[in-house]
């Protein structure tokens, strides 16, 4: 018998209840992570990446969204059935999260020392003031904040965007989590800072062995940072597997289209490839495959039933009827 994975998400369903109707933002998501894995979660805007992350930590916008089904197995427990009290112990300590925008995820009215120290204080990890100070300085050094001693009494508005982002990472690290979820952690930073930050994440991951879920639009970042990738489309994972396999020979037509839309460095393209058509309306999703209207391999059968996600011979998983018909490679 193989050992249970670190995190196993099974048939997760999170719906948004809007005035216009029910949006199935996360509709049967399933994936598993091992210790030290780093998973890139990619997909178009609105495909449900953030909702998936928020569902894992149970931080959905209330009362608009609710997880209506599935299991999130973590360390032998189903997070979805924990009490709010138990869930609080998971947040920050066992699973950390970095939010998208570093400019607004630090509290403007508390000092850096206060905010970075809070995770230690919350779990009673520091013995006295000077120990707390040492621990705070230590994590700030780990994320390469220059002269951290001088920074302790400063406020977020005195920090640059990159420094704020690293402070947010320091806060996540302060809980020494086994899994870090980073929801588009670098979209609001410029490219060099973005690069530095991703390098930092990799470095920390190597040092601590924590697993990582990295949400991004950028397949280049995934290729550099992750060992696994999950491609989401309309609330479902349509392809999941090893980064090299998926990015070099995509099985699902949507992954293929995403890769085609990437600019190739060193070449001059007049126009980037664009995926034609619109993402489906999640209020009234098609009965068949959600990608079918935009798919160049669409068959008659695709309109009728949703393709189940299947394990392919090379170990990866994909949800496409064409694969079964032997259409794709």
């Amino acid at each position, binding site marked *: 018998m193989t050992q249970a994975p670190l995190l196993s998400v099974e048939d997760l369903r999170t719906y948004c209840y809007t005035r216009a109707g029910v949006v199935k933002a996360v509709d049967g998501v399933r994936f598993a992570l091992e210790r030290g894995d780093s998973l890139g979660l990619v997909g178009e805007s609105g495909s449900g990446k953030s909702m998936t992350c928020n569902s894992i930590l149970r931080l959905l916008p209330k009362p608009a969204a609710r997880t209506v089904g599935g299991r999130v197995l973590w360390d032998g427990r189903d997070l979805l059935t924990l009490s709010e009290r138990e869930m609080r112990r998971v947040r920050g300590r066992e699973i950390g999260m970095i939010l998208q*925008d570093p400019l607004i995820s630090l*509290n*403007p009215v508390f*000092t850096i020392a206060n905010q970075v120290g*809070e*995770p230690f204080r919350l779990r009673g990890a520091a013995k006295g003031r000077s120990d707390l100070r040492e621990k705070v300085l230590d994590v700030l050094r780990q994320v390469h904040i220059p002269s951290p001693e001088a920074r302790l009494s400063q406020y977020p508005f005195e920090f640059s965007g990159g420094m704020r982002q690293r402070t947010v990472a320091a806060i996540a690290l302060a809980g020494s989590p086994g899994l870090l979820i980073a929801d588009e952690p670098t979209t609001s930073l410029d490219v060099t800072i973005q690069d530095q930050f991703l390098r930092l994440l990799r470095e920390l991951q190597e040092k601590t062995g924590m697993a990582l879920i990295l949400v991004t639009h950028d397949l280049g970042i995934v290729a550099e940072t992750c060992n696994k990738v999950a491609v989401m489309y309309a609330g479902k994972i349509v392809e999941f597997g090893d980064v090299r396999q998926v990015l070099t020979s995509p099985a699902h037509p949507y992954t293929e289209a995403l890769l085609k839309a990437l600019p190739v460095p060193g070449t001059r393209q007049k126009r980037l490839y664009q995926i034609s058509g619109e993402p489906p309306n999640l209020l009234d999703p098609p009965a068949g495959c959600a990608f079918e209207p935009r798919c160049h391999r669409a068959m008659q059968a695709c309109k009728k039933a949703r393709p189940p996600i299947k394990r392919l011979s090379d170990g990866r998983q994909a949800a496409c009827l064409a694969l079964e018909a032997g259409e794709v490679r």
Partner: protein
Amino acid sequence: MLRYALKRLGVGLLCLVGVSVIIFVAMRLAGDPTLLLLPDDATEQDRIELRQELGLDKPLPVQYAIFVAGAVQGDFGMSTRWKMPAMELVLARLPATLQLAGLAFSLAVGIGLLSGVTSATARGSVFDQCVRLGVTLGLAVPVFWVGLIFIMVFAVDLGWFPTSGRGSFAHLILPAVTMALNPAAAMSRLSRSAMLGVLGADYIKMARVKGNSEARVVWKHGLRNAAIPVATLAGIQLANMIGNTVVVETIFAWPGIGKLIIDAIFARDFAVVQAAICVVAAAYIILNLAVDLTYGLLDPQIRYD
């Protein structure tokens, strides 16, 4: 910071001078006190003599100069009605007013914040709806009417509280609640909207991600960011409390400064009105300055210079 405080204090002093001029002139326009002080059978000669004695025969600017010369030494003149130094009279009434205003203010801020913040966290719930209805009512009903209804219901019909006067703690409750109603409603509405603006922020989600309890998320991370508008309103309300006592003290016969001012106005007791108004205005100015200085503690981005 010190320079800022001194500058503000200077401006405050100017305001005080302005207030004293206005009240000085207004009182003298209100009528001649000698008409009330003399018996019905007094002669015109008696009246002229009394006016001389009180210094009312001198030109207005001279009268004002005499008033200021005394006031800077703490002498606000003699009360014509109570026959004692005006300031002494005012200071004797001050504790009663501070007691009433203090309890009313604590009730207003306590109830207002608690209901406002809680209804923001439970937006759209039954509790929220009730609070919003209460706020609308609290802002709409006039203070004097509430006071009279309270006396009728809780003092006369039910007999739970005394109708008027000062003495036991029970005497304090009806006037304090009456006075707190309006500011509590305003505080509730403001803190609700300020918290609604804050609770959606990413740093609130971040506080949850860190594993904070919901109470700490709301009352520490949330309220601390909504603190500036809340503190501003609280400061204004505290300053207004002292002036608001006039109506409530009159209804409940509460022996404080407000009631004293009314009685003194009717008696055309210039010295007492001037002394009392100066005390109220000075308190107002000092409280406002104190509120402005606390901004620096609440928002790290504010620097005084």
